[in-house]
């Protein structure tokens, strides 16, 4: 039953391909108000053209501060939002080409999501067994009570709970245990691709370690592919093969994890790495970088980071830099391209 497909080494197509994905939200005041006050429509560009690919069995993380659009990307990829522009392909199939529910179901089964808040994402009136069995029933994967019960028991064991827990309700569990239940539910349709939106942000560190270890174990065992969303760079580093750093709806740097931490290129990546308090840094003096994230409704011209960037030049204020490939790293920065940045 589980997908025991060993990660294949051949140069196949990535499992997930996202191209020029964008999503706008209309945050205008009501029409009458606009007419009376002479205000214009206000459009929030939550995601403004994001492209990435995730090879099978690997983890891509998106990291950034609140409002950078990382959660919107996650929701677009699983289909909770419809994209304004761009495409999402799972194993070559464009999700937009699937217009009926029946056509979507086989692809939908292959991707699942784990949410941040384990208190909000489980229905308090359902027994844990029913919560976990919901995708099995929805996709009609198994028929018959006994079969489903056995599968739920197996899933609970896989996430470190007991098959007997299927009879209980969510409120009987701690935050970490609830997140295990969320993971069991996500795994129940035998997905290949999991979108994890801040799965440990609501948990204490010792519990976070348990969940991160569990997710890594499950990935190794079932060859899962993860899109991992987090604001915590240390967690991201621990989990990822590749990392995309987002700022105001765009990816500003996309690089293999080790490379990103050893040689960050984009000034914003450098700022983030510099800003994070870390255990290794006892007594360290940091150089805090000024400024705050501007509003995505009215983003700065050119490179949206230029008002906070110590290396901004005239070109940065006028022209938005595209994501350019430099070896294994992709970075969107004029200063990097022109070689203006210090080592």
């Amino acid at each position, binding site marked *: 039953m589980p997908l025991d497909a060993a990660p294949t080494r051949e140069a196949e197509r990535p499992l997930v391909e996202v191209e020029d994905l964008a999503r706008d939200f209309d945050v205008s005041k009501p029409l009458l108000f606009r007419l009376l006050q002479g205000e214009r429509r206000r459009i929030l560009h939550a995601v403004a053209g994001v492209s990435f690919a995730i090879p099978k069995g690997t983890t891509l993380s998106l990291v950034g*501060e*609140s409002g950078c659009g990382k959660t919107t990307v996650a929701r677009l990829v699983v289909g909770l939002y419809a994209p304004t522009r761009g495409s999402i392909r799972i194993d070559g199939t464009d999700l937009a080409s699937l217009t009926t529910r029946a056509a979507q179901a086989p692809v939908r089964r292959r991707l699942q999501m784990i949410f941040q808040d384990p208190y909000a994402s489980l229905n308090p009136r359902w027994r844990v067994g029913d919560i976990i069995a919901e995708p099995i029933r929805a996709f009609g994967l198994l028929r018959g009570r006994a079969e489903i019960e056995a599968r739920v028991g197996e899933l609970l064991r896989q996430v470190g709970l007991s098959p007997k827990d299927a009879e209980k309700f969510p409120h009987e569990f*701690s935050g*970490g*245990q609830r997140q295990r239940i969320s993971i069991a539910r996500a795994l129940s349709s035998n997905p290949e691709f999991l979108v994890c939106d801040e799965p440990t942000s609501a948990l*204490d*560190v*010792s*519990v*976070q*370690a*348990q969940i*991160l*270890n569990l997710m*890594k174990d499950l990935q190794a065992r079932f060859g899962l592919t993860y899109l991992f969303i987090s*604001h*915590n*760079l*240390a*967690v991201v*580093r*621990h989990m990822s093969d590749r990392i995309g750093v987002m700022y105001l709806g765009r990816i500003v740097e996309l690089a293999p*994890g*080790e490379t990103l*931490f050893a040689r960050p290129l984009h000034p914003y990546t450098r*700022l*983030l*790495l*510099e*800003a*994070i*308090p*870390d*255990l*290794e*840094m*006892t*007594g*360290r003096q*940091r150089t*805090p*970088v*000024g400024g*705050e*994230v501007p509003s995505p409704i009215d983003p700065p011209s050119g490179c949206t980071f230029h008002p906070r960037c110590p290396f901004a030049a005239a070109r940065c204020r006028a022209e938005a830099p595209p994501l350019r490939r430099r070896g294994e790293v992709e970075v969107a920065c004029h200063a990097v391209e022109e070689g203006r940045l210090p080592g």
Partner: protein
Amino acid sequence: MPLLEVRNLRVEFPTRRGTLTAVDDVSFAIEEGEVLGVVGESGAGKSITGAAIIRLIEPPGRIAGGEVILSGRRIDTLPAEEMRHVRGRQIGAIFQDPLTTLNPLYSIGRQLVETMQTHLGLSDREARARAVRWLEDVGIPAAAQRIDAYPHQFSGGMRQRVVIALALCAEPRLVIADEPTTALDVSIQAQVIALLKRLCRDHGTAVMLVTHDMGVIAETADRVAVMYAGRIAEIGPVREVVKSARHPYTEGLMGSIPSLGQKVERLRQIDGAMPRLTDIPRGCAFNPRCARVFDRCRVERPELMPTDGPSRAACWLYAGRGAERDAA
């Protein structure tokens, strides 16, 4: 004499199903100008310890035992009116959410002026001039123009700067900062921590910094107390506690934090979770999760005792050392 001394503090919450002990026999001291970090996971009692010191525990919670001594004077028995004066004048407070500290109906200038006039008895003109200086000090751009703005007109990071100004403007000797940066984004966190550090150093203010973020503690505190299930598990110099933890809980906690410095394949994991306050195990509260547990841990509660380093830990592994010292 330490600036603040907490002795055998005990905080209880009576409930229908019996009394919960949220803080159980906690003792520590803070020296003048020192930054003491208090860390722990949720429910460890760290915030309640801070709230108990300034007597801001929500009823029905109550201080059920112990003493709080500030500059040689007991403050846990002061009448409420006198305690109001201690809060603000002698102990400032910074909370996680700046919106709970700031009054949305008053301009930030008015809140600063009122605080300074209440505690320092300044004239209107002098108080306003100082308020502008404080806002400049905490890095509010165009402070003289923005002093009459209201809290909602500031961003989260800027609001927290205003809260810091408000906590420090009556020149207290001690500031209790409860998760001051948790609600902020990382790049803003760094600014706020640096600001708090600089201002407290400049004014010689001691800080009790309560947070769950070991990174913030590692970088800011001089000493750190690690709390578990309402008790202090370990207390010592920050570098010692982070780099060579003595208590098995602290050791596990440090190992479970992913680090930017090095990548490990698996994080160290402490199985299980912190016990609920309704069923704290007998003996050492950590014993069911401890890898080095032995018989004594299950029956007898360990007090903080000296270890082989400068830290003290509440762990029977170090019992021999205590006995040696007692004999000497």
